[in-house]
């Protein structure tokens, strides 16, 4: 598999007077179609890393290559276009626009890229995505008429509308009960298989992390583990990450 994304010596420093280095020179590559989870305690720098990958934040040092193209020197306008074309975001809070209905929310990235009402084909695609995430009967409802799980599914459909090469998810199930969590996770996996997008998921939920192809653990701004799960069975990977408190392991 080719590299989709390469991070080279990424450093991030916050503050001007009192400097806090959050990331200490990370080197990570992500392959096309990979399903990666990033774990770590809060404050470890995993969200900062995700924001830098998504070009929402700029690294203090180091460079990012996306399909061999450097992103560091792009201006705000070019980055906006880049994000719109290549990156789908799923956040912990769904961040759907409460003012527009489900279908319009899903269409929003396409609407942004075209600048005006999307074509019929795109609308068809949006409807199909809504069907895939299983909220078909709520197509014309406003987000506040949906359950938390449904909203997050819509956010997933929205992240996929422009067929991005990269989908970034920050605690996508952090706000959901365990039933919805499993469903959303299954959905992400299915979509990963069907659309061949690269998924990078930040989570502190070990059960989710263990099911990914690859798990990267970050601690105090350094990568302390980068584990490939392909070929291992689920129990094995669970044991790796949750040695003490895994309810599945006790089965």
């Amino acid at each position, binding site marked *: 598999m080719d590299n989709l994304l390469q991070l080279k010596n990424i450093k991030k420093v916050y503050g001007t007077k009192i400097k806090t280095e959050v990331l200490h020179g990370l080197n990570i590559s992500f392959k096309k179609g990979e399903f990666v989870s990033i774990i770590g305690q809060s404050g470890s720098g995993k969200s900062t890393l995700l924001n830098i990958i998504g070009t929402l934040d700029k690294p203090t040092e180091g460079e990012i290559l996306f399909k061999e193209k450097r992103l560091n020197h792009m201006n705000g306008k070019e980055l906006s276009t880049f994000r719109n074309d290549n990156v789908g975001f799923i956040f912990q*809070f769904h961040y759907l*626009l409460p003012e527009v209905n489900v279908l319009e929310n899903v269409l929003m990235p396409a*609407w942004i890229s075209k600048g005006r009402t999307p074509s019929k084909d795109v609308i068809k695609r949006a409807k199909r995505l809504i069907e895939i995430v299983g909220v078909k009967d709520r197509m014309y409802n406003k987000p506040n008429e949906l359950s938390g799980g449904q909203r997050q599914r819509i956010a997933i459909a929205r992240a996929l509308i422009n067929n991005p090469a990269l989908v970034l998810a920050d605690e996508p199930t952090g706000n959901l009960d365990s039933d919805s969590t499993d469903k959303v996770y299954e959905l992400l996996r299915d979509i990963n298989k069907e659309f061949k997008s690269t998924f990078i998921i930040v989570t502190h939920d070990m059960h989710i992390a263990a099911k990914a192809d690859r798990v990267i653990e970050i601690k105090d701004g350094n990568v302390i583990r980068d584990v490939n799960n392909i070929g291992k069975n689920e129990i094995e990977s669970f044991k790796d990450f949750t040695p003490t408190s895994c309810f599945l392991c006790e089965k």
Partner: protein
Amino acid sequence: MPIEFMLSWKFLKSGKFQTILILLGITVGVSILVFIGSLIDGLQKDLINRTIGNSPHIVITSKTDIPRAQIEGNNIYKNVKLLKANNQDNNISSFQDYNQLIIKNQNVNVISPTVTASGFINKSKSNSPITIKGINLDKADKIYNVKDRIISGLPIISGNNILIGKSIANDLEIKVNDIVTVTTPNGNRDLFTVSGIFDLENESINKTWALIEINRAQKLLRLDGDISSIEIQVNEVFSAEDTSKSLERVLNEDFNVESWQETNAQILTALNSQSSSTLLIQVFVVIAVTLGIASVLAISVIQKSRQIGILKAMGIKTKSASFIFLIQGFLLGFVGSIIGSGFGMLLSKLFVTFVRQDNGEPLFPIDIDLKQILVVILISTLASTFAAIVPARRSARLNPIEVIRNG
């Protein structure tokens, strides 16, 4: 639909209460602008009409202001004429020289040579002092609008026909086709047939004016070809002053050129200060409305910062993000000022309908000037778009990271 338009529309629709609040503010502001504007305009036009409706905009007279009787009684003044004509045939064409000079001025619309003298009119045994005005009816009509205001008879003054004011006719019980005698101060008298009676809606005019053909007046007054004044109507009423100054330069020093502004300087000062205080009120209304819109939109940006942040994360351009608020300002201003104009006009209509004089007539006609309303709409729309600049810049500066990090 462009995305900026779609989003600003959806944002306005979702924040119904705020939208209605702003619209209400703009509506009230604009209706006051329109109402005050048309009220003051109507008032001023009415005042000016009353002032200059029955008088020429510019009057040219001779500086040698000597009564005719004196001139004729004393040989020294024999050659002093009021406005000297070139020949003796008592024709208007004898004034062509002046005519040529005056008509070159672009603003001049009507030139009406006039002979004015005092005299007496009598019928049977009763008589009444009058002002004899010798005119060319077609030209003078453009200044005084006599023909339309004939209340009985016909607007004819040729030959020995005479037109008299309503009050003279009432006082002396004169009817159309009656024969009357007109006597000048120096004793010349002639018989005239009353062809019509006019009502110029001004008591002093109705009570004194008697209109005859200018040639006839010159003969009656033994004026040879002289006239007493040239009355001028201009196109742009308010530039009469400038026109009068430039005519003064063109004509020689023997002439007095006086515009209606000079004659009515006091009224004009009053009107001017009224206009500037109206303008001041209007400016402050616009400022107040603009500030109101700016503050509500500024709040709305903060309320929508989560949406703006997420849209930016999804790749909306900074320019589009600020356009959303500019468009909101524009839409609010445009719709609000149209509704406001409607209300303003309604208010004006109500004012005319309900605020009346004792005799049931409206106080004065309110002047609804469509051009002025368009200007008001334009200014309000611009002001409200302008008010959206601060929120728009705020929206442009908003960093998606902050929103995402802080939830």
